[in-house]
């Protein structure tokens, strides 16, 4: 076990410094989803490394920002992103309605790795709505594949600041008996399963939340898999599936 934690802490140190790439980044994301939330030692180590990483940011000499910067920020605060709002209107309506249901406790949702925050449903709702307000966040629609009903698309929202991924749907078909949905994240054609399998509620609503830096990935895929199985690759033949391209995997291309 000690040897395992040495390896894990290597990954956590690199993660805190934003310096992981390739398989290490994928492994770290998996650890953050599956192991760290359940391991006090790793949670404390990660918190310590992240606090240290923030403090290293103090070491450069401070520099006076230009006088015009604060007024620019004020204009950013005041700006009403009309075009963005109209473009995001449909997304916002779907997410806000599901988020409101979550806040009221009217829908169960899947948290990939934030089990300790199960009580913060209202917080989750606010996070989604605020994410959609940000001009830096561009929702992605996962399109239905094959015979899957086109009306059942998922909305993906990720927030790079806090490395959180949300998946929202309000018309998700029920998977076949004994089956559930699995999220997959892909980079350069290789996919890894992410988070726990989930099923929509009886009205087809889904809210999936997890901490992951999607910048490491260029594709997201949801497939139907047997409950209790540990699939290693997406079931391309599954009756229902959704897929989308992401803007990620920038680190891999930058390092190439």
């Amino acid at each position: 076990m000690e040897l395992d934690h040495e390896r894990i802490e290597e990954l956590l140190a690199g993660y805190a410094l934003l310096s992981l790439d390739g398989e290490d980044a994928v492994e770290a994301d998996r650890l953050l989803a599956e192991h760290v939330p359940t391991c006090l030692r790793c949670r404390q180590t990660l918190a310590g490394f992240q606090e240290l990483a923030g403090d290293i940011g103090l070491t450069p000499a401070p520099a006076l920002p230009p006088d015009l910067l604060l007024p620019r920020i004020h204009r950013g605060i005041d700006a009403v992103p009309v075009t963005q709002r109209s473009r995001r209107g449909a997304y916002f309506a779907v997410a806000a309605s599901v988020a409101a249901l979550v806040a009221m406790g009217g829908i169960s949702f899947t948290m990939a790795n934030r089990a300790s925050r199960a009580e913060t449903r209202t917080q989750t709702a606010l996070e989604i709505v605020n994410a959609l307000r940000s001009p830096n966040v561009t929702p992605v629609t996962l399109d239905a594949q094959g015979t899957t009903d086109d009306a059942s698309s998922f909305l993906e929202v990720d927030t790079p600041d806090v490395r959180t991924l949300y998946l929202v749907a309000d018309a998700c078909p029920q998977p076949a008996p004994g089956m559930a949905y699995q999220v997959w994240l892909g980079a350069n054609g290789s996919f890894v399963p992410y988070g726990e399998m989930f099923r929509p509620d009886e009205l087809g609503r889904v809210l999936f939340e997890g901490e992951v830096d999607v910048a490491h990935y260029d594709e997201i895929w949801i497939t139907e898999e047997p409950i209790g199985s540990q699939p290693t690759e997406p079931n391309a033949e599954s009756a229902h599936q959704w897929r989308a391209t992401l803007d990620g995997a920038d680190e891999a291309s930058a390092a190439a």
Partner: protein
Amino acid sequence: MSEDEVEDLELHRRVAAGDRAAFDHLYQRYGPAAYGLALRITAQENLAQEVVQDAFLALWRAPEAFDPARGAFRSFFLSLVHHRAVDAVRREERLRRRTERASNLEPVRGEDVAEDVVEAAYLGVRRKEVRAALEVLPPEQRQVIELAYFGGHTQTAIAEILRIPVGTVKTRTLAAMRKMRRVMSPGE
């Protein structure tokens, strides 16, 4: 928790409630540190300004991203700036052009606060502590930290720059982070 950290929490709470004066106060407090960090990473004034602007706008739009249970506001916010600065240089594919300069990063020792920068005293105290912790690192460990943090390089890229195995980069990184934590938090 220090009085300054308590004040940060109060300012953040007010920002979350929509208080523009509290936002401006946080800007005055952390703007110089944020801009200094962004300048160091991006090496470009315009890009650094964009990074700082984005970070403060993110704070205004999603103040709940800071969870006081996870550490100090100072650390959270500078991590936000760091993340955005690294993303910016990677996104603009300037990494390759910056490689030569980044491999000769200036040492942190001797960087002083410019005379026209007015900064809260506690940030200066903390800066000295962090610099001191960096300085006690063996040069080869300090180098990998600076290439990763300020150079924005991945561990794979650092291995190529230094012509050492990736495993050595990982080992040095972990050793450096552990040592800095011990120096800065001797009681833990």
